[in-house]
């Protein structure tokens, strides 16, 4: 397993990884206990360092807090990761802010990423057994989102919120969907449909709509991502 380089760690602490870099870094932290512990340790060091800095002292508590908050959020996120790694489930991700590299368009954007080793790439037309998928989304106007997955047999399942009965409130983003999905070996089309809306959506309606050739729901925007999985 290739660990992040000193340059990557430098960029992480300087908040200059960019969206793709952050995804790759985060993907590695999820898989690597040593780097996760290092991240938590260094974020605490950074908190202490910035609390002592002339800028923090000169600007008072407000500046120290401005740096402390993201670091505290990262520590909280890492603690949750540690706990969920032990329990075998993944936590729900909260919002990331990287407006420099990811600008949402229209009522919502939805991408599915494939995690292969240390790389994360956008889902293409083809996928394969064992691919771990991670979704990212953003919306400047919608307040609710539901993601439905449809497997090669046509079975629809609510993936976000996982097995939920209604959609979930979202923040503008960009955001990652916390749980990832690992593809099995069943050949055929895998579909992922994100529904964005102002009002809450029902799972039953979303599942039915996702199975249609052209998914749509009244009062919602649907974004579809498909891939085809070859047989074994």
């Amino acid at each position, binding site marked *: 397993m290739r660990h992040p380089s*000193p340059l990557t760690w*430098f*960029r992480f602490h300087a908040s*200059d990884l960019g969206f793709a870099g952050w995804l790759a870094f985060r993907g590695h932290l999820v898989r690597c206990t040593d780097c996760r512990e290092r991240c938590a340790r260094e974020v605490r060091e950074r908190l202490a360092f910035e609390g002592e800095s002339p800028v923090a002292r000169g600007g008072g508590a407000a500046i120290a807090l401005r740096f402390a908050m993201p670091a505290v959020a990262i520590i909280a996120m890492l603690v949750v990761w540690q706990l969920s790694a032990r329990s075998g489930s993944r936590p729900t991700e909260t919002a990331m802010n990287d407006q420099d590299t990811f600008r949402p368009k229209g009522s919502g954007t939805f991408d599915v990423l494939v995690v292969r080793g240390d790389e994360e790439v956008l889902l293409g037309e083809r996928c394969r057994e064992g691919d771990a998928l991670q979704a990212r989304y953003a919306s400047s106007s919608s307040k609710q989102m539901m993601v439905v997955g449809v497997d090669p047999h046509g079975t629809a399942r609510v993936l976000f919120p996982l097995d939920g009965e209604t959609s979930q409130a979202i923040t503008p983003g960009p955001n990652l969907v916390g749980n990832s999905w690992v593809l099995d070996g069943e050949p055929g089309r895998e579909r992922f449909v994100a529904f964005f809306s102002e009002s809450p959506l029902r799972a039953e309606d979303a599942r039915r709509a996702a199975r249609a050739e052209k998914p749509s729901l009244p009062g919602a925007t649907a974004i579809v991502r498909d891939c085809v999985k070859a047989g074994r």
Partner: protein
Amino acid sequence: MWTRGEIEALYRKTSFSIYQRCRALLHEDAEAKDVAQEVYMHLLAHPDDFRGDASPSTYLYAIATNKSLSRLRARRLRGDAWQDAVAELLRSAPMSHDPERTAAARAILTSALEAADERTAAMLVYHYVDGLSQGEIAEVMSLSRVTVNQHLQRFRDQAKEIADREP
């Protein structure tokens, strides 16, 4: 060109990163903070130097590395002391489990630092100490990947010569 306000904003964002980088190379807390301050003094003195080829943090990473290596030279180390300083640098390098590669790296890096060949020393640090990829080295040093590859091949040949000379 960076304004003073932009440099202050950069300071807020990157001061820990720079300090951490300097400490990794100098292995001394107070000196690392000192050199970190020199990095920002450099930005204030040369606000036009940043051309925007790489991200600001990449640019700062290079400056912090160069200033730390200059500080190592300024300690007026000679002979065995250089070897010790370089050994310290290589201790946590990705290839530190490989004694032959580490010994060759130590020899090459020591001679580059002694000769005050700053760019070569920096590239050696990026390659042997940091384990950066060719693409990352190219980005940090504003070189093409072809040029980086040529330099690294030369280092590898040198390292092989050194390893072959060892009894």
